[in-house]
């Protein structure tokens, strides 16, 4: 497989940021209460990660080693602020429901981690593949968690105001605990155990 393809696939399964690297769990746990939030968060996250990987892989040869991390942080913070302003202007409802977790992408360790561990050592094309792979890995994870939490926690599925599915006789008494922060830990813990048991993820 080409290095582009390899870098792309690696982020989804073998070094999935959530299920294998266990990075960036705070926003994952906090916003995974509905599919809408998960999709919005993934979009914002992938945009920032992609743009930051591209910019950093372009400038990494010129960045003095001493100010490497400050430069990365300024680039990431700028990108996040752009996304935040754009969301407030064009999708205010989503911006409201994601709240503080958009500005907090600045300190998301996955993004700085990829900048430091990958984009600052590789070319633009490989960095794009890495960003897309890791971004998809994050997206798959947060979508899976929020799917389970929304379905069992409220007994029904809604997507952007459209009603998709109701579990008959269950939506009156759903497992509300799954909607609480504690439920997020339960779901992610069980998924981690499941993937380990199935042999999908293994320690490197």
């Amino acid at each position: 497989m080409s290095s582009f393809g390899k870098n792309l696939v690696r982020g989804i399964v073998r070094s999935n940021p959530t299920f294998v690297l266990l990075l960036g769990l705070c926003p994952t746990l906090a916003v995974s209460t509905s599919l809408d939030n998960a999709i919005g968060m993934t979009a914002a996250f992938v945009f920032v990660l992609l743009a930051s990987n591209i910019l950093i892989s372009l400038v990494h040869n010129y960045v003095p080693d001493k100010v490497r991390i400050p430069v990365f942080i300024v680039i990431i913070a700028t990108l996040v602020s752009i996304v935040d302003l754009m969301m407030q202007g064009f999708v205010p409802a989503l911006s409201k429901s994601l709240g503080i977790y958009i500005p907090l992408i600045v300190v998301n360790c996955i993004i700085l981690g990829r900048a430091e561990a990958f984009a600052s050592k590789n070319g633009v094309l490989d960095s794009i593949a890495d960003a897309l792979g890791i971004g998809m890995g994050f997206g798959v994870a947060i979508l899976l968690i929020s799917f389970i939490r929304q379905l069992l926690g409220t007994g029904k599925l809604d997507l952007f105001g459209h009603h998709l599915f109701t579990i008959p006789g269950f939506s009156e008494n759903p497992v509300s605990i799954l909607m609480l922060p504690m439920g997020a830990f339960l779901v992610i813990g069980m998924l981690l155990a499941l993937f380990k048991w199935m042999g999908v993820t293994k320690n490197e």
Partner: protein
Amino acid sequence: MSKKREFWPVIFLTLVVVISIVALTLTDGITKDKIAQEKQDAITEMLATLFSDMESFTYDEDGGLYTVLSGGDPIGHAFMAQGRGYGGVIDILIGLKPDDKSLQGIKIITQQETPGLGAKIINASFLDQFKGVGVDEVNLSRNGGKIDAITGATISSTAVVNGVKQAIIEELGNQHKGGNS
């Protein structure tokens, strides 16, 4: 030469910061009007859900009081209130009938209550209870008022009721002091 090297990181970082300031200024220029418009629309829409006959409104910044107008006549007042919920501050819009004696209704503007439990305070079945209630009767029914708390969401329900009660006392108190209406 060595001197140049020492300063290069500082210059580089400054450059990066300057570029990012330019980028952010441009973005702000594109989105500023849009965000302000969005906020204005949100307020108009909010008031319109409480006062279906609304045609326009005026805003008094000192008291934070909206006066809702229809055909030039006031058809009610509205102001913001805050409740201390389980997940943080709950922002509530309160609408009063023109005589300030009873509620037109209330609306939750922002809340971070637990989805599926406390977040039920945004449901019509809870909010509709406030419609037409006298300003002295805003209280949970177990405390002698007219509002039933949501099962499993006592903290959030209490937060809304107390926030509304408090804001009405403050707002009406202000008006008496100010001597208007």
